[in-house]
Each structure stands twice: as structure tokens, then as C-alpha cells.
């Protein structure tokens, strides 16, 4: 076995070419699901057949929001909830770019919920990778619009009574053309979905149900990250094309994963070009 000694790391991990190693180690806790979402993403990038110099990664704020800062491509760390508007602007200004938004559930469907809805409605050609850890992790584990009913968080000490957002259903209703969900355990299938989503013209969404091993799992006494991965192993079921109305996530209940939506709709940029050509006669 080749073992690197401290201080003289000669060996290079195969993903280093796409990572900002000067910023490592990253901030994520042991057993956190964000790191594994990133390895799936980087592996997917290596399988894509286009020039990665034409890709831009955009994140908002949160633990997941740190992703853009660790990927060695053009990347943008924006304000909380506004990753999608920044991404829309980048795509409109330079439609040749592939734009990927990588951010958390709080960032994208709570404070950024309206942007999510309207980007899907417009069918702007961006890919959204959403890490759903059911909580506002970075700020201390507060209840989020994605927190399952009855789950404890630091601000729902008697359990959450709200109905959580069903993210795939929200995306479908708003107009997304590609919608998939995996857990952090399904890393190979996740990688494949990320490739498909990036190659799909229009608004595509990949939701990743992932452990927050620091807050969500501790407060709910669900063990370490590996215990949550074991839970996904025993309790997730692959059902491609499942109607999205059935995809609500309950507290420690079965998680349905798969590809649910893959359809065609006119894109925002094409519609805009056609319209302006017609308007100008």
C-alpha cells in the first residue's frame, strides 16, 4: 500500500484536478452527506463530454452553499436564497455556458423558493443539485420547510408540526423537465442522474437526501452519518416514474427514489429568441 507521510503528500487523488485543494480540508463534519454529493458530482463531471471551461457552478449560503468554493471551475458563491437568480443571469448573458446550481434545501426552497418556482416555470436551461438534509444546518439546525413532521430540531423542541415541502412535486408542478431524487447512499445512480440532468436542456433538478450528522441526526438520536446511510439502505425504494404526489418524505419513513420526470418543454432562451425575432418581423 502506498501511504503518504504527513507533510509530504506526493500522491494525487484523481478528483484533485477539479477541486480547490488549497481550501482543503473542507468544513463538513465527519459523516456529513455533502462531501459524498460532491464526489458524485465530480465523478459525473469527468463523464461529461464537453469543455468544463464552459461550466459555472453557483451556490447560495449554507453548509451545502460551500460547494461552489471547493470546485475548481468558474464558480460563484452568492447570497442566501439567490443562487438561482445569479445562475439565470449567467445563462442569459452567456447561453453557451452550462450552469449548475449546487445548494441546500433551505437556500433553494425556503428563502429561495420563489426563484426555484419561476426558474422551473420559465424552463431556463440550468441544473439544480439540491442537498436536502431536512434542516438549516449551517446556522445551528433550525426547523426548515423541508423538516419531516414530528422531527426534532433546535427550534422545534417538541417536534415539527408542519407539513414539509415535497420537492419533486413542487418542481414538476412548476414546470421542471427533469426531476430525480437519490440518497447519499445511491452514489453511482446519483452520478448517472447528474450526467443526465446536465445534458438535459431546460430546468433539471436532482434532489439528494443526505445526512446532517451534526444536527439532524444528533437531535433526533439517529446516530452517526453511517447509521443514516444504513437507514437509507434499508428504507429506500427505487420507483422510476412514480407520480410525484407520492413523494412526500415522512420522519424515518420509506424514501422513494428514482427518476420521476423526463419531458420536453420550450426553453426560456429559445422562446425569448423566437419571440424577439417575430416581434422584430
Amino acid at each position, binding site marked *: 500500500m502506498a501511504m503518504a507521510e504527513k507533510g509530504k503528500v506526493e500522491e494525487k487523488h484523481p478528483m484533485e484536478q477539479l477541486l480547490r485543494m488549497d481550501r482543503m480540508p473542507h468544513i463538513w463534519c465527519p*459523516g456529513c452527506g455533502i462531501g459524498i454529493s460532491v464526489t458524485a458530482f465530480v465523478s459525473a463531471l469527468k463523464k461529461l463530454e464537453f469543455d468544463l471551461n464552459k461550466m459555472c457552478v453557483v451556490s447560495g449560503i449554507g453548509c451545502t452553499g460551500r460547494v461552489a468554493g471547493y470546485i475548481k471551475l468558474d464558480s460563484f458563491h452568492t447570497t442566501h436564497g439567490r443562487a438561482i437568480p445569479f445562475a439565470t443571469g449567467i445563462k442569459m448573458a452567456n447561453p453557451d455556458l452550462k450552469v449548475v446550481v449546487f445548494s441546500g434545501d433551505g437556500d433553494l426552497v425556503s428563502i429561495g423558493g420563489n426563484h426555484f418556482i419561476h426558474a422551473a416555470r420559465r424552463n431556463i436551461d440550468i441544473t439544480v443539485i439540491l442537498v436536502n438534509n431536512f434542516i438549516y444546518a449551517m446556522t445551528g439546525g433550525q426547523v426548515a420547510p423541508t423538516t419531516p413532521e414530528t422531527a426534532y430540531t433546535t427550534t422545534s423542541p417538541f417536534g415539527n408540526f408542519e407539513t414539509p415541502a415535497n420537492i419533486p412535486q413542487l418542481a414538476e408542478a412548476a414546470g421542471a423537465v427533469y426531476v430525480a431524487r437519490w440518497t447519499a447512499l445511491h452514489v453511482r445512480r446519483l452520478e448517472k442522474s447528474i450526467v443526465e440532468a446536465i445534458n438535459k436542456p431546460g430546468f433539471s433538478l436532482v434532489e439528494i437526501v443526505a445526512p446532517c450528522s451534526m444536527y439532524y441526526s444528533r437531535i433526533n438520536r439517529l446516530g452517526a452519518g453511517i447509521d443514516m*446511510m444504513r437507514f437509507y439502505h434499508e428504507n429506500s425504494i427505487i420507483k422510476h416514474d412514480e407520480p410525484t404526489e407520492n413523494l412526500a418524505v415522512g420522519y424515518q419513513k420509506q424514501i422513494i427514489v428514482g427518476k420521476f420526470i423526463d419531458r420536453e418543454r420550450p426553453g426560456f432562451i429559445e422562446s425569448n429568441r423566437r419571440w424577439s425575432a417575430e416581434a422584430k418581423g
Partner: protein
Amino acid sequence: MSNVRKPYDLSEIKIPRGEIHLIKDRCKGCGFCVEYCPNNVLEVSDEFSEKGYHPPVVANPERCLNCGLCEIVCPEFAIWSTLKEEVEASIEG
């Protein structure tokens, strides 16, 4: 053994053997690589790293198939494999 039919193309089947690379000081001891290696190559070591975690130890290096799963499940970019050689398949396994 006698009831195992020998595949006609057995001599053409090559089994990859991997070499594992581990940067111990990057590891945060999550255990994902140990749990998800399909061929039980890795075990959790008793040893503490500089950071105070238990990194994996390569307990059965000869069993590594260079499948790359440890690389993709490691959130710390600490472990990966490279192809060492390809050996001919045998029905004795």
C-alpha cells in the same frame, strides 16, 4: 467444483487488481469506505490519526478489484485505488 462449467472464454477474462492509496491525515473516520467496499478489503484501524480519527486499514489488499467505490464514497478525498495488474480469471476463484 466438478459441477462448475468452465466458461469457453475463461482465458480471455481478466480480473483487475487494485492498489489502494490512502492519505491518512485527510480521513475523518466516517467509515463509509469500510462499509461499502464490496470485497471487504478495508477495516477500521485501532490506531488514531493526527486529527484523532480512526482511519481505515487495508486488511486484505489482494482482494481489491479497483472498482473505485471507496474513492466515490469518501467525503474527504482521502482514499482511492489505481490499477496494479490484471490477472487471468480462474474458476477456483
